[in-house]
């Protein structure tokens, strides 16, 4: 989330930085967004 939303890196750049496949980057981002949304909606 930090690398994508704050630093603006592409999926490929994040994959390189984290040493994981681009598909894993996308799935992790999706899970992170879902969990963040749930946390924010649950906390309001």
């Amino acid at each position, binding site marked *: 989330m930090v690398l994508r939303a*704050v*630093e603006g890196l592409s999926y490929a*750049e994040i994959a390189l930085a984290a040493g994981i496949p681009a598909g894993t980057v996308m799935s*992790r981002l999706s899970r992170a967004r879902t969990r*963040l949304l749930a946390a924010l909606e649950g*906390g309001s």
Partner: protein
Amino acid sequence: MRADLDEKTDERLAALAAGGDRGAFDALVTRHRQAVYRLCWSAAGNAADADDAARRRSCGYIGRCPRTIRRAVRPVASKIAWNCGLSVRRDGNAGVPRVAEGDAPEAVDPAPGPEEAAAGNEERRRVAGAMAGLPAELRM
């Protein structure tokens, strides 16, 4: 810092740094300092440890992997910063000098009014809390 270095690309600066040009190395670190600091902060969990992590990274890690830097400066620097932040969080910061207070990064936003600031702070706290609840692999 040398003015001629400002116009060079990251890749060129990294190549120069790899060849022993200390000025190019300093220019590279300065150019990405804010981004590295933000990432260190996120990984380390607080400002003081982020300072330590950023300082550690700029003091040695980049200089030890010039070939990697040449290939992709920013993603690799991000990974290094992240790992440094995690390392500081895990191992503590014994023996690492603190960054002087006057050397702290500048605030991103201009000062808003009191009500706006309060609302913004509350929102930031909520988002930061939600981010802190994510596992490290998702937060990165």
